[in-house]
């Protein structure tokens, strides 16, 4: 009876299901960064164990339970390893979730990956509608179905709402301006009513001294703006198909946030919008660096990710038993009676713990053998690691198959990659990264590029390496094996920030000191945590860069745009749009635009081949006639018109002396074409009247013109009182 009822319900469900779209997700199984090196040279990041379970399992388990039916796993580096893993895991035969893999070796960034998917899409059209875009290192338990529904409804109302971004409240450290996940502090501006994302900025610590740079037009176009500095970007995006085509159109988009989101935000032409969704009680975080590896591991142990915790079998993992004090222990662990296994510790299957060991706040994988009197604190020991007697390991990551010989010490922040051997009584210095693979030579600084390059060659190098190792003495003591990677000079300072180890006291004190000094210097208060800013709050518009320098770049860009417009015969309106976007990105006033455009126009006139002054004048006049619409857009105010005249004057004096003799004539043309109004010329003349003789050259040149203007106005104003001067 019950079964029949159920059957009946299922039929009606089916018909509903056909009308709705399948829920799909794209999972990027490659981070396209080098933050997990040297570990990721040998194994892809998504297969690294996070509390003894490969990261991708957390992501897939979450997607599955959130109702996603089909996942496209995009594999790039080490793609065969990922595909092999997925083939053998239980995801292959999962009843509710279809896992498909997309393989590409050419992609070197998330942008490339999405472009590749888009290309595939034209052939196979696998992605039918909105999809969830996540990376394979996301740990979350948030529900998605409602959010996708919300996104779809918004999309129905507003064609331009192409993406919903998930954010979560998480206070950054006041000292380091770093989130608990080790990422830089994030500033976002959101419309409080519609939740539309208006500004996105991942500040570097150096710039984060409590100031934030917002575009003034943002304030003009929105009655109120919510500014957050305590949000964490979860890197979970609900995207509409337009996102893929946007990546295709903008072939230079690489990074999802740095390029794509910023690109969409400054792009006025297409007018695409991104919305945010703040999650309340659910958990979401991305393992992006070693610091977040540590943080997310602890969150899992503390059960914030419930039900994706070690004692629940959520996706192919063997659950371990949870005891008092948050100690997770597999049932077949052999533990000496004198060993002290403390709070928040996970011990995997088949691990042996020897006499007098002290283990605290650590994760130990399966099949490890730990000798006597070993101290392990805050560390992550992966599978099949052998630790001999008397070792001390603090805040380190030790990968599969490592052997640490008796008496060795790992100082905080050490990362030992696969199968490294640490020699007897050797002390591995803090923050060092050790691998059997040699550090790749210096590469160009483009971090997205280097990853793919080296990973393809890594396998070949590995085979040749074992021979090399034997002949060469090790850097890890006489009986050790492995290379200590050098830290690049620039990154040395950063090392402590993203390491698994907590930030040492002295560093914190240093930063606090530096901050105090800075505060004394600037006497500037820190921006309070999130609050609503009214549109009159222009005061926060503090520019970090030198404005003059910026103007130079801006002028060049405008000139380039203008020349292109002339060459390609682009319409005035489109030109205005392009220049507007430049203006927004450089944060310029419209007077600056007017100056820059006029400069470009005159430059063009001068650069056009001409034999005599009169020909130059003709050129200039025709250009002004043709493009006065463009210039006119920015010279609506008298101030702006004066700016144009000043610019002109400056040009005549400095860059284009040929124009000098024609100053008055061209000014006349500008007046006739209504680019410059009478008022502006008068005020310019007034201003200049008091200047040095040298500066008056052009004023004198136009004296007749000004005189004529005055007379004309006096004639007009005959009825009115006579004007002085």
């Amino acid at each position: 009876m019950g079964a029949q009822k159920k059957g009946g319900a299922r039929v009606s469900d089916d018909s509903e299901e056909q009308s709705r779209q399948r829920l799909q997700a794209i999972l990027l199984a490659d981070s396209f960064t080098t933050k997990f090196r040297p570990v990721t040279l040998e194994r892809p990041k998504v297969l690294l164990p996070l509390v003894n379970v490969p990261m991708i399992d957390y992501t897939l388990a979450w997607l599955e339970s959130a109702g996603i039916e089909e996942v496209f796993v995009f594999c790039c580096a080490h793609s065969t390893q990922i595909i092999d893993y997925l083939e053998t895991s239980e995801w292959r035969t999962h009843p509710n979730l279809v896992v498909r893999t997309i393989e590409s070796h050419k992609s070197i960034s998330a942008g490339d990956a999405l472009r590749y998917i888009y290309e595939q899409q034209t052939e196979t059209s696998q992605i039918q509608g909105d999809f969830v875009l996540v990376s394979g290192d996301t740990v979350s338990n948030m529900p998605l179905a409602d959010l996708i529904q919300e996104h779809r409804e918004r999309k129905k109302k507003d064609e331009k709402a192409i993406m919903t971004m998930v954010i979560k409240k998480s206070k950054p450290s006041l000292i380091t301006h770093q989130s608990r996940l080790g990422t830089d502090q994030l500033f976002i501006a959101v419309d409080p009513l519609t939740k539309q994302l208006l500004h996105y900025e991942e500040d570097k610590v150096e710039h984060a001294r409590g100031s934030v740079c917002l575009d003034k037009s943002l304030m003009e176009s929105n009655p109120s703006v919510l500014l957050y500095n305590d949000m964490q970007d979860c890197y979970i995006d609900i995207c509409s198909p337009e996102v893929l085509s946007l990546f295709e159109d903008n072939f230079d988009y690489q990074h999802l946030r740095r390029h794509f989101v910023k690109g969409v935000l400054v792009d006025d032409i297409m007018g695409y919008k991104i919305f945010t969704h703040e999650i309340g009680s659910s958990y979401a975080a991305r393992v992006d660096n070693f610091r977040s590896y540590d943080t997310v591991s602890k969150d899992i142990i503390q059960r914030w990710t419930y039900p994706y915790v070690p004692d629940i079998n959520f996706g192919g993992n063997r659950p371990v038993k949870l005891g008092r004090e948050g100690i997770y222990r597999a049932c077949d662990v052999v533990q000496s009676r004198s060993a002290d296994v403390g709070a928040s510790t996970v011990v995997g299957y088949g691990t042996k713990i020897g006499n007098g060991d002290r283990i605290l706040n650590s994760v130990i994988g399966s099949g490890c053998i730990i000798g006597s009197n070993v101290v392990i604190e805050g560390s992550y020991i992966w599978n099949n690691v052998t630790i001999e007697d008397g070792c001390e390991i603090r805040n380190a990551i030790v990968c599969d198959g490592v052997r640490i010989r008796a008496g060795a010490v790992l100082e905080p922040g050490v990362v030992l990659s696969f199968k490294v051997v640490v020699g007897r009584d050797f002390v591995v210095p803090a923050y060092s990264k050790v691998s059997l693979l040699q550090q790749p030579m210096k590469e160009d600084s483009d971090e997205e590029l280097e990853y793919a390059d080296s990973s393809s060659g890594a396998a070949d190098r590995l085979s040749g390496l074992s021979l090399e190792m034997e002949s060469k003495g090790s850097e890890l003591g006489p009986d050790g094996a492995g290379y200590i990677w050098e830290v690049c000079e620039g990154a040395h300072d950063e090392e402590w920030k993203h390491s698994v180890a907590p930030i040492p006291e002295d560093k914190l004190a240093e930063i606090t000191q530096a901050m105090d000094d800075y505060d004394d210097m600037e006497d500037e208060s820190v921006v309070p945590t999130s609050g609503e800013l009214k549109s009159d709050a222009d005061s926060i518009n503090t520019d970090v860069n030198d404005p003059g320098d910026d103007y130079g770049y801006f002028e060049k860009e405008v000139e380039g745009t203008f020349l292109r417009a002339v060459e390609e015969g682009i319409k005035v309106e489109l030109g205005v749009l392009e220049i507007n976007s430049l203006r927004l990105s450089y944060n310029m006033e419209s007077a600056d635009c007017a100056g820059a455009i006029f400069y470009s126009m005159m430059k063009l006139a001068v650069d056009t081949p001409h034999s005599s002054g009169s020909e130059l004048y003709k050129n200039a006049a025709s250009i002004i006639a043709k493009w006065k619409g463009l210039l006119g857009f920015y010279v609506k105010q008298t101030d702006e018109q004066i700016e144009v005249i000043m610019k002109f004057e400056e040009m005549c004096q400095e860059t284009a002396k040929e124009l000098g003799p024609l100053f008055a004539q061209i000014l006349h043309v500008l007046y006739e074409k209504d680019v410059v109004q009478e008022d502006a010329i008068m005020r310019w003349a007034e201003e200049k009247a008091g200047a040095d003789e040298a500066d008056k050259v052009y004023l004198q040149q136009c004296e007749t013109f000004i005189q004529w203007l005055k007379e004309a106005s006096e004639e007009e104003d005959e009825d009115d009182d006579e004007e002085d001067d």
Partner: protein
Amino acid sequence: MPDVQSMVLEFVNKLRKRKIEGSQATARCTVELLRSVISHHRVPHANQASALIDAVKAVGAQLVAANPVELAVGNVVRRVLHIIREEDLSLATAAVAGLDLLDASDDDEDVNGKGIGYPGMSAAVVAAAARSTLRPPSLQTLLEGTPESATVPYTSSSGADSESKTADKSSITRKLKHDVIEGVNQLIHEIAGCHEQIAEQAIEHIHQNEVILTLGSSRTVLEFLCAAKEKKRSFRVFVAEGAPRYQGHLLAKELVARGLQTTVITDSAVFAMISRVNMVIIGAHAVMANGGVIGPVGVNMAALAAKKHAVPFVVLAGSHKLCPLYPHNPEVLLNELRSPSELLDFGEFSDCLDFGTGSGSPLLQVVNPTFDYVPPSLVSLFITDTGGHNPSYMYRLIADYYSADDLVM
């Protein structure tokens, strides 16, 4: 018809992700799944009972492993195994004694299942009766007159025409599966009807103008209280809200909707209010073999308060909640720690959870257990669908529902 294996997988998946809440829903799903497992299982000619038992055990092991904390799953699996064993035994008895109980028991079920709806008259009972011919009668069968008297006529009548119908081997093989499925249907019926069975007894326990305290939300308690209300008893209910999930709020809503005088109190106010309370009634998550109770968190405190003030502490439990295991370290091993987000707002406390500064070890720990264990000494009375029982009597009930062979799966 969907593939059985995929149904099992789907259910296992739901259990793992903790998507099924409440022991009654879980029990129902489990028993329905087991029924389709049995009906799809091809039985060999010889030794079919053990083949069925193996099949059920294999599925049961998967289910129990998927969520070891949900004891109802294991209970139901054991109940089904018990049904198979009993049916097998009764068939064997019938064959040996030359009795043909099968037709009789079938007719009996049809009548009872639809007409009277009395749960005691199942194949299992008939089987128990048959067994009683082989074994000495149990304490329960001696005390409870009904099953005995109900079955006695059948045994005699079927004994009369035993010569006419000799047990045919092939009919028996078909019969076993059929009977087992009948028995499982009976079990489904029993689980579905446990609320009504329990609620029927409400009038005997709740008296005029009493004050009843309850904690958390339980469908059984709701039905129980409403049944008393329907019988024109006027009484008041105190509901402890059941932090951190606040299911007491839901219960209060339901109670008010049904017209009961309701007062919501915090969990911590239980001790303060207990002196005005006449009886504490709670719904159990599971009842252990020693009479100990696993209930929503906070129940132990309520039980202690009741003991201190000599207020009766009554536990309502459907028979699928009876677990044949003895608790060992129940606070930890039979508990489930849920997400701390039910207690704290992650965003607000994220600065306390910053492992980048300080010693790197978490200073803030949040423990959010789902269940509480109440030792049997604090329980005054169990009300199950078969009536009221003392905690010390639980082991005996369990012996009637489960086979000793299945205790360890």
